């Protein structure tokens, strides 16, 4: 079927690997050239399908890391030691290789450029990926929406996009709060524990000022954070979540 309607049946498309670059010791960003890519909204994801020579297939979902105006489509993948797909994507895949993907999908968990109020992004580990797409999108639009990213990572070395996030905080209205849960560099003055209700009370905007909150990461993280935000008086309908499952990929 030639072309696709804007609202059409999804098809699997071929994506060619253009670049694979490390972000942290466990994560890599893969840039793809996708012919006829229809564009996407920050926060959406793609389903990735890999087929082995004997026909065996595996499918996984990955959040799009790039903003919608970027020239290549980027995914940032964390290597899970007992994973089936992530070790392939992060260790085997090289420029010139091809995978299949379906998307972009997911209109529910997307950056809202018309948000009236503060936006609160909460990332658990690799859950930062779709939120980074949102931060990049916000930056590309020159949006002034007050946005805070609360990023929970095990250690500083596990923080993805650290330099770029530092650059983005130079822009008006965007800031990042880290909590490093397992190891902190000497002299660390920031949070050093898992995100809990007290931490959120200090970091999240007050309920009347919050337009929307996006929470993404492993399911237990998302459940804990969303639950705590509700306890702090935030409206459940303003809390959007994306659960990555127990491990995420």
């Amino acid at each position, binding site marked *: 079927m030639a072309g696709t309607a804007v609202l059409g049946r999804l098809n699997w498309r071929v994506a060619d690997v253009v670049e694979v670059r490390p972000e942290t010791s466990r994560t890599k960003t893969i840039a793809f050239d996708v012919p006829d890519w229809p564009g996407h909204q920050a926060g959406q994801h793609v389903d990735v399908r890999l087929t082995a020579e004997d026909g065996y297939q595996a499918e996984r*979902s990955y959040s799009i890391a790039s903003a919608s105006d970027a020239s290549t489509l980027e995914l940032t993948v964390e290597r899970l030691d007992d994973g089936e797909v992530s070790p392939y994507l992060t260790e085997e895949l090289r420029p010139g290789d091809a995978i299949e993907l379906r998307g972009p999908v997911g*209109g*529910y968990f997307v950056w809202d450029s018309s948000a009236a109020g503060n936006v609160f992004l909460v990332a658990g580990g690799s859950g930062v990926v779709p939120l980074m797409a949102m931060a990049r999108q916000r930056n590309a639009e020159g949006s002034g929406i007050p946005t805070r990213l609360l990023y929970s990572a095990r250690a500083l070395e596990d923080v993805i996009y650290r330099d770029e996030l530092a650059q983005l905080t130079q822009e008006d209205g965007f800031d990042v709060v880290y909590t490093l849960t397992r190891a902190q560099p000497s002299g660390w003055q920031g949070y050093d524990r898992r995100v809990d209700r007290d931490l959120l009370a200090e970091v999240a905007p007050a309920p009347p000022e919050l337009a929307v909150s996006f929470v993404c990461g492993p399911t*237990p993280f998302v459940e804990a954070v969303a639950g705590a935000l509700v306890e702090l008086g935030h409206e459940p309908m303003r809390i959007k979540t994306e659960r*990555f499952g127990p491990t995420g990929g």
Partner: protein
Amino acid sequence: MGALMLDGNAAAGVLQEIFAVEMTTAVGTCDSCGAAGEVGRVQLYRGAGLILRCPSCEAVLMKIVTSGTRAWVDLRGLRTLQLNA
């Protein structure tokens, strides 16, 4: 275990492939308890097929089985589905 559960957003690809429209922003009403909410925020389980459950009462909203050439969708758990233009 709660860790197995994803949200409806994770089924976005399958849903759009079947229904040909963006489904995660559609608002479903649970036929069991009447709670309404976006499909993107319902509970998603992966069994032999996909099961979407009401976040309020955990009743089954939707079951989806795909075979590659066919798809079966049980929507009995949804009283109604509001699709946005």
